């Protein structure tokens, strides 16, 4: 899939093919001028790296004897064989599936609830709540993880009674402590996206529903939620992508909890493999990870689209 998408920018950038197909494209120069900067950058920092990762992942390092010069030779799918045999990698992928299956619905459920409350006439002080809930989004993941790491550590926490009774940094709970950090940062952001979609619904629809005797909850359930479904799908896709590339938060938690290993998430596995260094295997991990993310978010998009039709 990644290989297929390498040709098109060349096609749009070069006007030769265009002239062949159609005699006249108005404003050709302007189009090229507008689209070329992004096209070139996209080629350089997206398509070529993807292609290069695929290429690297197909190489193996060979040596003549134990101390011989290392040489890179084409090894077909050797690295991918190793990827599929790698226990820690699949363990980390499984961990992220578990994480995503719980954290994403909880976060989006809360975001939807807050957005509906912000949009309903029963809530006062909307401006304040909107801002207060959004503030954590301004806290970078690293900083948020450092803060929560302190808050959850048994000795430094302001809630020592709680943290001494429940060890949030234990092997059993640390995954959910990280989930809490991610939720804390992103709920307000997702809330705002859904809330913006709610604001775009024409008022007349609600007026008609109210005249028919529908209460706020019924309006929310039967009208508002279906109408903001596209926004929810969008936030869900970004959350799925975010889950699979989780890195900063668990990396920070390593200094608070011994339970977080160097292969706790797929991205940490990639980083650890790359610093061994085993560049080719790390590239194969990246490719598998990118494909998994791509397929998952694409499948989710398709599945929800079908439901909406």
């Amino acid at each position, binding site marked *: 899939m990644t290989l297929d998408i390498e040709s098109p920018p060349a096609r749009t950038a070069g006007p030769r093919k265009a002239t062949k197909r159609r005699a006249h494209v108005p404003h050709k120069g302007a189009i090229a001028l507008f689209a070329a900067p992004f096209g070139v950058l996209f080629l350089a920092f997206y398509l070529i790296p993807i292609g290069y990762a695929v290429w690297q992942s197909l190489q193996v390092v060979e040596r003549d004897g134990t101390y011989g010069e290392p040489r890179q030779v084409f090894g077909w799918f050797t690295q991918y064989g190793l990827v599929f045999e790698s226990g820690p990698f699949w363990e980390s992928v499984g961990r992220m599936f578990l994480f995503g299956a719980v954290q994403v619905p909880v976060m989006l459920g809360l975001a939807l609830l807050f957005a509906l409350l912000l949009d309903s006439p029963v809530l006062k002080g909307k401006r304040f709540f909107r801002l207060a809930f959004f503030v954590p989004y301004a806290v970078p993941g690293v*900083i948020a993880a450092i803060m929560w790491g302190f*808050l959850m550590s048994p000795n430094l926490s302001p809630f020592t009674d709680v943290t001494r009774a429940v060890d949030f940094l234990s092997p059993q709970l640390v995954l959910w402590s990280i989930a809490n950090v991610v939720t804390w940062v992103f709920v307000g952001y997702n809330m705002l996206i859904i809330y913006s979609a709610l604001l775009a619904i024409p008022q007349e629809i609600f007026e008609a529903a109210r005249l028919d005797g529908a209460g706020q909850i019924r309006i929310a359930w039967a009208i508002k939620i279906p109408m903001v479904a596209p926004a929810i799908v969008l936030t869900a896709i970004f959350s799925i992508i975010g889950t699979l590339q989780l890195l900063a938060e668990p990396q920070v938690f390593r200094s608070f909890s011994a339970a977080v290993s160097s292969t706790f998430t797929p991205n940490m596995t990639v980083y650890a493999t790359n610093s061994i260094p085993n560049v080719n295997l790390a590239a194969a991990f990246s490719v598998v990870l990118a494909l998994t993310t791509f397929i998952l978010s694409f499948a989710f998009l398709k599945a929800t689209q079908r439901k909406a039709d």
Partner: protein
Amino acid sequence: MSMLTRTRGATADDLKISGTKPKESMISRGAALLIMGVFTLYFLVPIWWLFVSATKDRGQFLTTPSLWFADWNLWNNIGDLINYGDGVYLRWLINSLGYAGIGALLATIVAGMCGYALAKYRFPGRELFFNVILGGVLVPATALALPLFLIFSQVNLTNTYWAVLLPSIVSPFGVYLSRIFAAASVPDELIEASRIDGAGELRTFFTVSIRLMTPALVTVFLFQFVAIWNNFFLPLIMLRSEELFPVTFGLYAWNTQLNQIPELRTYVLVGSLLSVIPLIVTFLLLQRFWRNGLGSGSVK
């Protein structure tokens, strides 16, 4: 936006059939306020704790109640933080502003132009080009970091400003948002009129269209600014020299050394507090522009 909310609130209140079920309304009002109140605590207490902790000296951090002030040491702490390690913290802060400010600005212009071209001109291969860019939205940035590192190390660009800045200029999501917004908010008639007046395509874009696209462009800028500011994998994999670190990565590096150098704890906390301020200020300054753009991306 705030105006929009206010007018909407008014209509909702006028229409609410409060006379028919006043009791339920009271209960639901109370329930709504309770839910939002509890979560306000959840969202704000950690930040309050960070603020209070940053005002204490090292001893009082451990010995005084964490959620209330002891002696006010904030200015001393900030002074110590700035002086520590030859002022490396300020360096990090400036680096972050550079990476995120310059990166996001260029990304916005480049993505805005491309989105505009996709929305307003017809050319062969347009949909294919757009779909490839959309595919780029779904590629996790961290999957790109490693191959970028390998490529950059071959041209000796690792461990330079460029290593973090250059990849930050590409925002496929920015193109997507710009296209949707340009299609919705820049009328073809206006472009035609501008052409009849003799303005070239570039001039039309930079004097007329770009103004109509402002909400979307501010949104793109903010998204990209935050994305660069928060980016972790790219600095982790690209940078070795401390003086090139962005602030979040520098604080991360300090945080990993807490066991060996405990006095860093105060600096990590004060530094974290200070590093959050630029983002909050940016959001507050730009918030009236950007929420419209946010909505346009999600509803479509």
